[in-house]
């Protein structure tokens, strides 16, 4: 039994949750008495539960590894989707909704999911109409322009 066979997504999720509780509880120790009361009241039991759950998950992973079950691993398709979520985040963050929105929709259709050029172009145009036409102009909601665009426009 190797460490790698136990350290899968399932165990990592439990570990991340435990670390969140542990670090938030430790940070709470630096607050004033009143401010730390509730965070500690929740954080300490959360940490204890985190240890129990991590143990449960490790135990289950050992069993799964022994039976050759790989369902706890992260698949290639999932990695690709994480990539797209990050791409949407960074694209919008840098270039805003009006510019990045249609471009991201177009890229997702074509590069990500192999749709036809026609579908990609119609989707991008539709996105532009909704974001720029509807939100920005009809509703007069000022949308985020993107950090790079804001920097370029001064």
């Amino acid at each position, binding site marked *: 039994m190797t460490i790698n066979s136990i350290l899968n*997504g399932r165990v990592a*999720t439990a570990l*991340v*949750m435990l670390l*969140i*509780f542990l670090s*938030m509880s430790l*940070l*709470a120790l630096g*607050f*004033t008495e*009143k*401010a730390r009361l*509730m*965070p500690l009241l*929740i*954080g300490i*039991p*959360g940490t204890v*539960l*985190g240890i*129990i*759950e991590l143990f*449960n998950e490790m*135990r*289950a992973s050992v*069993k*799964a590894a022994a039976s050759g079950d790989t369902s*706890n691993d992260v*698949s290639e*398709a*999932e990695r690709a*989707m*994480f990539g*797209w*979520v*990050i791409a*949407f*985040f960074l694209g*919008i*963050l840098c270039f805003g*909704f009006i510019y990045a929105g249609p471009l*991201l*929709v177009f890229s*997702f*259709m074509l590069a*990500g*999911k192999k*749709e036809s050029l026609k*579908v990609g172009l119609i*989707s991008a145009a539709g*996105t532009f109409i909704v*974001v720029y036409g509807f*939100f920005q102009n009809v*509703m007069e*909601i*000022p*949308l*985020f322009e993107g*950090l790079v665009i804001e920097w370029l426009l001064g």
Partner: protein
Amino acid sequence: MTIIGSPYHLFLLAIAVPIGMFFGAIPGLGGKLGIVLVIPFVFGMDAVAGALFLIAMHSVVHTGGSVPSILFGVPGTGPDAATIVDGLPMTRNGEAGRALGAAFGASGVGGVIGGLFLLALLPLLQPIVLAFSPAEFFLLALFGITLIAMLSGDSLVKGLMVGFFGLMIAFVKLDPQTGIERYTFGQLFLWDGVNIIAAVLGIFAIPEMIALGASGGSMAGDSKINASYGLKGVLRGIGDVFRHWGLTIRTSLIGAFIGMIPGLGGDAASWICYGHAAQSSKTPERFGKGAVEGVIAPETANNSKEGGSLLPTLFFAVPGSSGMAILLGAFVMLGIQPGPALALPENMDIVWILIWGLMLANVLAVLMFIVVAPGLGYLSYVRGNLLIPFVLLLTFLGAFLAIRSWENMVVLTALGVLGYFLKKYHWPRPPFVIGLILGPIAEDSFHKAMSLWGPAFLLRPGALVMIGLIVLTIGFYVYRLVSHKEKPEWLREDDD
């Protein structure tokens, strides 16, 4: 009734209802923005017409909000998040039409019962509203938190951890007592706390899109064989509301009651009612997997709480929710002065008009939605490839618009990635929202109650009633564990 039945007022209702549903259906817009945007248009109207227009619009926002919750797992408004838990699995099971029908039917019935609740309570309202002190607030929030156990499915440890995680995230803000920064790391946008819309979109919408993209297909999966997206499915859903009439009435009343208490809000109403539905069901294991009762309960509460929250808004000028706060301002602009004076006989006309307007708007919304629902249901069969980029964009847009801050998108992405792993490895996600919503209420009222009465606040009559309810809930859960096969994972001997 004569005034509201005039063609002019009915015409206004017919315009206000679709506008309200539209604002509810688009994530990030919501009823508050809707009211703000239409205020300039109603400003020139007479007070009665303007107020009727606004209340009709506001009262059906959550009816529209249920559509993206059920079809895509993206809540149109915060309180609609609870509808995702069973609405989305119903869509995946090919029952989008039924889920939409149940949501619309429940919203309509909830709205009408909320209005009737308001009518019934008019003579008694003052002592009831004033009976709620910080002590009862704290225990009511604690009662809501105990429902986490009910929503934990077969893993109590995971459920508690996710609920506690929501509570911890709720503490990210300036400490309400001392004003010192807690977990904000110097970020100004966190001073008011983590935005609920961004958190809910992150925990629910992003994981659904990742899962859909990774698995391929459509939101309804391979369920075309049993699909019920036509009018038949919608009508079946509406029928479900009346088949579960006991639950419908109970959750409508609970929602209206919670709406009446300023500060608790619609999010709390829908989650508490969802928890109640799971708790009172004979087959709680169906919840989270597409139980129609899981759609009915939050949807009745969402709309009935508007009736309840009109009470303190109109008669004490204390808004029952943030939406009502904006509505209150709009009423004042229209020349209606909320406060105890509204209860005088000569001012009661406007109160009656608003109550009838609220109920009629809810009925009208159901009728309008029945027409369009089958078409909406088909959306769940659109290929994921075509949906994902739009829903992702809308999700980011919703997170940004919630507080007009790009930093909210950071929160959305971080929680979205974590939310996916929670989904994949079967960590129940609803407890997160309960913790996030009730955490600040519990903390704030706890400190207030302690300052006012010390630990003796637990001995107040109202507090004792609430403690009784909490003990009953926990006792019921323990009884169920012992007597039922629904043992949590950590209690099972042959754990996987």
